[in-house]
């Protein structure tokens, strides 16, 4: 594998390698160095009905360090959510994304906040990628007012409309037609933007997906369907659920690309390619070969249908954060200690935010009746005992 890069000027290197002194602010400034570096993806892309993009990806120190920090933050956030769930501060469903972080960060590096993203219920990290804050995540998970949905949505219903993040959907597969609808609106308004509709290998068999894909292809919608193939639909391995687990080929007449979803740079390249394609030629499918370390949700140990060796094997060979760490170290963009310091910072940030989130109050009882409608018309609504609790819908 040929690696070529421009060595950054010596003064810049010296700055990067300077040890942190106690007078520096807690948050270490990410390198602003945008000198281009070319990196090869782990494996070449496999394509269906189209020409695959090049394996050589343009990046730079700033981007790589951002990838590292963002993924470390997401990783830490999900692990912290695991603890909060076990402490019963998070209730109901909690589907964790650790292992899949490269998909979220790689995608964001290729698109703008005017492009739309919609996903299913494993949405915490996607929300962060779209600009959501840690506080909004933890507060929402704990059902507090500071949550992104003011405590009324929960883990599966994060939204951030101002950055075109449309959730957060609990019904498997429903988000795919919705995503094609977002693409429809983008085309209708001539926005020159695209939509990424994410779904899992379990959802890939849903009929409505093919209905929406058919319409998207007929109407040339700028829809990019992204199958986050973590190889298990809840407890069912892909080979037990799909006659053809080559999800990137399932579009038939719709082109597809298979991508190493644990390689953030490969994800970035694929999403960039897909965006260009979708704007010119309509829908395309991206299959991200990825892996989740946790079970399907917090009530799933994740080991009844796969071996612990498999899980630890992926962690050792393919972990997305480790890949970026090795890349940064081999290019001398930072020292091991500096990267460890970033991880420590991130850990503190997460812990501090959790403390802050715990202080956020639960919603007022009157919030039971808000947002039922956008325009309430002064209509009456009722509590469990309608003679006791009534409200006028705002």
């Amino acid at each position, binding site marked *: 594998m040929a690696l070529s890069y421009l060595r950054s000027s010596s003064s810049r290197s010296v700055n990067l390698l300077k040890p942190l002194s106690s007078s520096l602010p807690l948050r270490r400034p990410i390198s602003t160095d945008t000198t281009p570096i070319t990196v090869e993806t782990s494996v070449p892309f496999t394509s269906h009905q189209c020409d695959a993009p090049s394996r050589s990806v343009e990046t730079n120190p700033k981007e790589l360090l951002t990838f590292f920090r963002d993924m470390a933050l997401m990783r830490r956030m999900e692990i912290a959510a695991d603890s909060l769930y076990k402490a019963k501060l998070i209730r109901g469903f909690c589907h964790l994304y650790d292992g899949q972080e490269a998909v979220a960060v790689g995608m964001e590096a290729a698109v703008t906040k005017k492009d*739309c993203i*919609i996903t299913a219920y494993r949405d915490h990290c996607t929300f962060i990628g779209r600009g959501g804050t840690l506080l909004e995540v933890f507060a929402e998970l704990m059902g507090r007012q500071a949550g992104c*949905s*003011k*405590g*009324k*949505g929960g883990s599966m*219903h994060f*939204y*951030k*409309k101002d950055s*075109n993040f*449309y*959730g*957060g*959907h*609990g*019904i498997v597969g*429903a988000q*795919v*037609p*919705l*995503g*094609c*609808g*977002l*693409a*429809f*609106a*983008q085309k*209708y*308004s001539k926005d020159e933007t695209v939509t990424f509709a994410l779904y899992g290998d379990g959802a890939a068999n849903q*009929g*409505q997906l*093919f*209905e*929406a894909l*058919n*319409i998207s292809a*007929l*109407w040339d919608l700028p829809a990019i369907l992204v199958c986050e193939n973590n190889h298990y639909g809840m407890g069912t391995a892909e080979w037990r659920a799909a006659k053809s687990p080559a999800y990137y080929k399932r579009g038939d007449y719709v082109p597809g690309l298979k991508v190493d979803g644990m390689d953030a740079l490969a994800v970035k390249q694929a999403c960039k390619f897909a965006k260009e394609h979708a704007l010119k030629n309509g829908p395309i499918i991206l299959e991200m070969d990825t892996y989740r370390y946790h079970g399907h949700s917090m009530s799933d140990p994740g080991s009844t249908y796969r071996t612990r060796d498999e899980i630890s094997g992926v962690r050792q060979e393919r972990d997305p954060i480790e890949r970026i760490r090795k890349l940064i170290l081999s290019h001398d963009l930072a020292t091991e200690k500096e990267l460890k310091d970033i991880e420590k910072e991130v850990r503190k940030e997460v812990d501090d935010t959790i403390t802050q989130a715990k202080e956020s109050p639960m919603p007022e009882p009157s919030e039971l009746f*808000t*947002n*039922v*409608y*956008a*325009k309430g*018309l002064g*209509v*009456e*609504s009722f509590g469990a005992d*309608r*003679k006791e609790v009534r409200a006028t819908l705002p």
Partner: protein
Amino acid sequence: MLGVVRKKMLGQSLLKIRPAVSMLRSYSSAAKQMTVRDALNSALDEEMSADQKVFLMGEEVGEYQGAYKISKGLLEKYGPERVLDTPITEAGFAGIAVGAAYHGLKPVVEFMTFNFSMQAIDHIINSAAKSNYMSAGQMSVPIVFRGPNGAAAGVGAQHSQCYAAWYASCPGLKVLTPYSSEDARGLLKAAIRDPDPVVFLENELLYGESFSVSDEVLDSSFCLPIGKAKIERVGRDVTITAFSKMVGHALKAAEILEKDGIDAEVINLRSIRPLDRSTINASVRKTNRLITVEEGFPQHGVGAEICASVVEESFAYLDAPVERIAGADVPMPYAANLERLAVPQVEDIVRAVKRACYRSVPLAAAA
């Protein structure tokens, strides 16, 4: 307005009431006749003209001019980007429409009949109705799902169900049921302008019926409020609530009852969700008797909700148990005689009213 003219009429001559259509022709100088079909078509046309974000999507709405010709002429006028023929994939296109609404457009989705909406019901309920709540106000869904609902004639069990009760039980939806052309125009325009998801239940057998419409109704700014019922016929002895086609049946029943000295008040619900409980209760407090009429299945139906509401709010005012007239508790049969038994007829309403009145002499007889 229609109601006002009729009230004046009643004051003059109780026994000379004639059907609404011909009466208005003689009294209103501005009265034109308009079919419900034309009312819906004109409402769609005007709203699409007024707002670029409004578009129509459904099976056969474009080149076929609409399965029931409701969208006639719209493809020619607005082009294929705004009038879209879909494949026969309700789950897919309903989901796409909701997604478009998330991103700021105003889709009008036509279901060829609401029986097919069941294929898309997850998107109507989980993707549309609940989104504003789950997102604490970030994701409003300004979408209209419209199409014929309930029984047509001889179309059998899978094509005859009424979905009013099902959709109306879901918070976050608005459910409208027009009867007349005025209702069709005013409520469809209101639905398209409303920022929430609206289920708009039409009736195939009403499409061809003509009603008088005033100049006010014909104006492009005409709009009816959502959540307000209309008293089609003022009365003193008994309240009959109905919606959609059953309003016509209730009015005919009222004419028959007139001859027996029973003066029925007929309420056209117009809106099943929100339900106009205050109009219904005010009427029952005046008449002390209630008959609910609907075409759909009786169990957990619209009448059950109205009855419960009246028992909760106006129990002391009831002089008789609430009567429910509904479709038979069976899948719709095909044979004409059985079909007739499966759907409420005018005589069913008359009989129920008389049952509700048996305990005291109706006040109208004293006039």
